[in-house]
């Protein structure tokens, strides 16, 4: 009897606690955010996606008044993390770092096998971009892009150009360059991100490398950047010409942003994107971003969605180069 009584009390207590909690959550949910936000990173700790969230994390926590919990969901060139983001509850408490053009290339080439569709992820903001660069070692005989192209024309397929994996921005930007310049190079896919690509270049195992310009800038003592993609020269590299200056249309660039599962409330998107862009506009953040050889972007929700759409239509034709 006593036992039953005791269990009854416990159950009652538990129920009332649960009820209080339910009301507390329901009552508080009027202002977002009121509990920690989980931020999924689709690449390994220490990579650029990680750096981008860590850069804003302390400031964002101060602005939003809640903690940001960074969690890593790595694998499949980002596919694992983005599939999970696409399936998360769209309440604004799970967001994730996005990277272009990786996401659009994967969905275009792998279809359903990618594990997510672009329309399952709502872009909140795009904050940073890096043009792609073609670089050689400091002691390389190629001093300009013209030298490089001339040699390649005379020796088709002889130049080994390292890059991050196949079916990647590196691969695509080199394909674009080869087509525009009418040359044939051998693309050497290297696993493990831009770090090993730079080791292979600096170690002299490949003749040239193509990856985000920021990596070249980080190693500027050892490498020479021949050209960068994009319409304008980079602020961090005023002496380096763009491919366009030689008449080669190379557009591939890498950009980093933030997204949430589709169906996330509009006010959440607005709040997050305002906070993020406010952090990105802070002078010290802007300075750090530019010094690393990256370009700040300030795309809010509407511009972000338009940006993604623009990339989708641009890359639909571009990926044909890789087939």
């Amino acid at each position, binding site marked *: 009897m006593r036992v039953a009584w005791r269990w009854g009390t416990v159950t009652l207590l538990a129920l009332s606690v649960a009820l209080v909690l339910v009301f507390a959550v329901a009552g508080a949910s009027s202002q977002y955010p009121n509990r920690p936000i989980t931020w999924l990173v689709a690449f*390994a*700790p*220490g*990579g650029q996606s*990680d*750096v981008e969230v*860590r*850069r804003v*994390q*302390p400031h964002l926590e101060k602005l939003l008044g809640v903690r940001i919990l*960074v*969690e*890593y*969901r*790595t*694998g*499949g*060139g980002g*596919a*694992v993390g983005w*599939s*999970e983001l696409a399936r998360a509850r769209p309440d604004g408490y799970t967001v994730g770092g996005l990277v272009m053009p990786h996401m659009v290339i994967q969905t275009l080439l*792998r279809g*359903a*096998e990618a*594990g*997510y569709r672009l329309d399952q992820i709502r872009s909140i903001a795009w904050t940073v971009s890096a043009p792609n660069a073609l670089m050689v070692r400091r002691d390389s005989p190629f001093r300009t892009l013209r030298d490089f192209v001339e040699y390649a024309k005379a020796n088709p*397929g*002889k*130049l*080994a150009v390292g890059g991050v*994996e*196949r*079916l*990647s921005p590196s691969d695509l930007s080199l394909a674009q360059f080869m087509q525009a310049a009418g040359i044939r190079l*051998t*693309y*050497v*896919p*290297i*696993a*493990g991100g831009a*770090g*090993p690509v*730079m*080791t*292979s270049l*600096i*170690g*002299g*195992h*490949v*003749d040239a490398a193509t990856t985000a310009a920021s990596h070249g800038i*980080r*190693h500027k*003592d050892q490498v020479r950047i021949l050209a960068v993609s994009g319409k304008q020269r980079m602020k961090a590299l005023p002496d380096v010409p763009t491919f366009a200056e030689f008449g080669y249309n190379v557009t591939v660039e890498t950009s980093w942003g933030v997204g949430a599962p589709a169906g996330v409330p509009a006010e959440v998107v607005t709040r997050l994107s305002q906070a993020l862009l406010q952090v990105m506009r802070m002078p010290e953040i802007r300075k*750090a971003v530019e*010094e*690393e050889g990256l370009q700040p972007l300030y795309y809010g929700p509407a511009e972000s969605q338009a940006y993604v759409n623009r990339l989708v239509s641009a890359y639909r034709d571009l990926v044909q180069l890789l087939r």
Partner: protein
Amino acid sequence: MDPVVQGLLNVLSPQYLLLMAVGVAVGSVVGALPGFTATMGLTVLLPFTFVMDATSALVLMGALYGAAAFGDAVPACLIATPGTPAAVATAIEGHKLTKKGKAHQALLTALVASALGQLTGGVSLLLLAAPLAALSLRFGPPEVFWVGVFGLTIMASLTGKSLLKGIAGASLGLLLSTVGVSRTESWVRYAFGLPQLQGGVELVVALIGFFTVPEVLRMVEQRRREQYVAEYREQPGALWEVLRETLTRPFLLLKASLVGIIVGIVPGTGGPIASLVAYNEVLRSSKNREVGKGSIEGLIAPELANNSVAPAAMIPTLTLGIPGSAPAAVILASLLLHGVKPGRELFGAHATMTYTFIWSTLVSGLVLFVVGLFMIRLLVLVIRIPVHLLAPVVLSLALVGSFAVRNSVFDVGMMMGFGILAYVLRKCGFESGPIVLGLLLGPIIEPALITSLTLAQARGSWLEVFLLRPFSALFIVLSVWSLVRGLRGWKLAQQAAAAEA
């Protein structure tokens, strides 16, 4: 003042000693919990390092990284469960030592060897950073491929009675490593339409499945006969015994350190390979018949090599800005976020900070030794827990650990699947060692092979890329030699076993 001297003085200040103690404590714990790695410990610390200056952040993270390489030996020795992939050899040799009633010696050996490895690795970082960084650049994809092949040749040391089953196991491991998006070509393989499989088989998850689960099942099986994992008596003088056994073998210490340092600077490799190669080497070269059956000597090599990897992996990180291992990548990110660029600047404008860090890797070896001595006194009591209590606790640690790696329930299922598979395979005479070896080396060998093949296409010569580079040639010779020695050693061991029986 000279930055080298200033760095040493800095390190000995109470502030940094305290940070090291914190790093060592956290590192030992994350290392000891299966499924939790140094990388995870570092990412947890990362937000806290923002509020520190860059030097403190480096000292703290470096201490954690080193200590995790000791922590992983604790469950390996006590319950045959490697805390991280780097403790596979320890789980074999250390647990056999525990079985002999020498759990205390096993843990002390791991501690002494780890602290020594930290010292030798630290010395290489202090004195040889520039030449070793240059050496690390010589290892391109073809060299890394041959290092991987060399790693495979130690399979014979890990296999049980049947060599054929060992080869089959290693092949299974290699095959499992191909699941998911391929690392160079970006094709999806063996994913069966499951997005969770795109990320492939996580090494730590497989490790828990292949080592922990069969061990738990074995505990349950033998519960009636063996109430405890191993006999254990308090043994005074254990530390003295371990120190004597360790310090009287300067040649072994040197060899194991060299293995750790070389593997540490080779891109894409790390503690797991260093410890196995060092273990293989001591098995091959030792005259001591106890080595391989649970000996202090056999345990020194893998533990020492594993710990000298950590400072050595910081060499390419600091000098070239290219991380030598996954934990080093996190440390590098923290540096970048503090606005410090690696390379020349680190040894120029920030030289005092850099040398403070380099000295801290040495001093944290001593801190690890002191903190570890206290921890071991408590940890060794795990052996006193009767099996019927220990088995469920270990199993729940395995469940939590396999979930924690990627916060994935799918991984928990995968771990259980591997566990049951490993149990059945063990009954049929397949050891887990070769399988995990294949799983460990596949992701190193395959991408390096594909990259080298494309490189050979550009060079127009297969021979030039694969055979004629000096370090490729060196590792080919080493592989052949290791294979022949390994097979002969295996044959001799089998004959000896047959003669005894």
